[in-house]
């Protein structure tokens, strides 16, 4: 190790990989992963979220997690976004293609992507 910059570079590279364990995240993205969700493709959605959140450099702020069935199976895959102090946002009939937009506009920009929201799809 010849300089602090070198140490800092390793730290930056590793930070995203351990952030998952810190639990001090502002936003929780929860993907419904019960049988109904998995059957209509929740797995690729979940993995796409993990990938995009990391790509956007949000790994320290956003945690991507999974949950069971919330009861509206016909709208699966369902993704819920929890943010402290804000109302929960529920996205329905998700696909991996929709993920990028949600990460970019909602998680990064703070603006809900209303066209994907459960209430509007109904």
């Amino acid at each position, binding site marked *: 190790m*010849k300089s602090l910059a070198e*140490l800092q570079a390793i730290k930056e590279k590793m930070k995203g990989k351990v952030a998952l364990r810190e639990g001090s995240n502002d936003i929780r993205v929860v993907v419904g992963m019960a049988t109904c969700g998995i059957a209509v493709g929740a797995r690729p959605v979940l993995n796409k979220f993990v990938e995009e959140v*990391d790509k956007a450099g949000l790994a320290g702020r956003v945690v991507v997690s999974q949950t069971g069935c919330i009861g509206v199976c016909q709208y699966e895959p369902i993704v819920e976004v929890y943010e402290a102090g804000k109302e929960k946002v529920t996205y329905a009939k998700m696909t991996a293609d929709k993920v990028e937009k949600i990460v970019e506009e909602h998680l990064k920009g703070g603006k809900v992507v209303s066209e994907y929201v459960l209430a509007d799809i109904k």
Partner: protein
Amino acid sequence: MIRAHILVCGGTGCTSSGSVSIQQKFAESLEKNGLAEEVKIVQTGCFGLCALGPVVIVHPDGTFYSRVEIDDVDEIVTEHLLKGRVVERLVYSDTGSDEEVDVKNVALSDTAFYKTQNRVVLRNCGVINPESIDEYIAMDGYAALGKVLTEMKPEDVIQCITDSGLRGRGGGGFPTGRKWALTAPNQADQKYVVCNADEGDPGAFMDRSVLEGDPHCLVEAMAIAGYAIGATEGYVYVRAEYPIAVARLQIAIDQAREYGLLGKNIFGSGFDFDLHIRLGAGAFVCGEETALMTSIEGNRGEPRPRPPYPAVKGLFGKPTVENNVETFANVPQIILRGAEWFASMGTEKSKGTKVFALGGKIKNTGLVEIPMGTTLREIIEDIGGGIPNGKKFKAAQTGGPSGGCIPASLMDTEVDYDNLIAIGCMMGSGGLIVMDEDNCMVDMAKFFLEFTVDESCGKCTPCRVGTKRLLEMLDKITSGKGTLEDIDRIEELCNYIKANSLCGLGQTAPNPVLSTLNFFRDEYISHVVDKKCPAGVCKDLLTFTIDKDKCIGCGMCARNCPADAIIKTDYVAPGHKLPSYEILADKCVKCGACIGSCKFKAISKK
């Protein structure tokens, strides 16, 4: 992309309850379910709740699974990781609080056991993979060393440690900053930094957990100490009985060398530092600093008189700083977060936190780290979850064989160095053994004295002969042959040994006796005058009797008696059909098997 981490505890406790095979099973199961690319398995150090091992934590939710068995692994993978459903039956249920907790998702940090803790020393234990230097760096690892080498002068480092109020965590409580300041100005061609990892107190295992869970922290701290006092070589003296700790420390040293964090010209500052491991063969006396250094030099581990102190003439006759693992583990955080931050925790003269190893009659046995000044009541009742089986708390032994006991009446004592010394105890390395009403205090004192008699190195007479004679007198008391004069003689001998022994081992060996005599003198007197052991422990003073009116004559006790000491009588109690039994006192070996076998609670020991 990795979306979840499975943390499997790889500390000694969980390893011995099978965590290694659980980890392998997770790998197989993830592979089978096609999750190997999405879920990562991390072997970590100790989480602290050793009683509930093997411990597994699943992130990002932080779900805390306890007592995981190999057959549970598939269920966790298919239910939790595949379908997102927590396996509720394996989730730790809080024993420490009465509040209703959402059982569905109990994260480790929400449990009563962890909530009151403040983890500084153990901050990375159970969080990072101890065998990965990169993960340590991600948690600000080696940033303190970088700061020290590029921004601070050695005297600034010492000043920072002095201002923080950090005191030695190995037992004595000597101010760390002062120790460094005494060593720094001594000129020599070579100086040394030594880490005392010869943790020998029965029941204490915090140093092992740091070595196993966060070994890089020690490497970094010792390099900082080396810079502060002008030493370029360091030795870690660690027990050979800690194979996992030794292996992980060696890995850490190798990785640090590879990254150039040990070796020549670290961070381009011109500072050189390297570390070596020396294994101890398990002698308790080698935890004494002069004996430890003698042992590193390759000689028989015996203490020598001080002065000269190690600061002047230590390892290989050169100026040496010697600190314990837990003390060192505080150093990088103090450098990074500042002396004021550290000094804001704890009491007036004892700053920071202390790690305690909870053991004995307590629900949550394991490791806890709490601010100095937390009361014993909080430690035992809130964090430790209280005494199991509805028994009453009697006393807690701190400081192992060198310490003393704290009785129930002093449960609200704020635990710090000075308060403990004031009541005849000592902090020691932080072992805390809890005793309930079934523990005999004379027997307890005898247990620790047996340990010190065994471990006395024999160099000085007060310790070698004195502790042996002391043990014989205690034996006399527990076997019912003691007199009141013996109690006085014990006290006199204790004080003599304390005053005249060469090193800390002898000087503190009588403490368990003196402290039990102080707080539980009545128990000694019962043994001597009434020839009774109130707790029912000392066998020679017990008689086992069967209440003939309660005995229904089933004969279970007689069948279970290994000495054939129980026979049938002619007496049939009113309302019973069969004759009752009785115990022949001359044949009884007082093993207690009959009490365990009697379903009618007809047998008692007094």
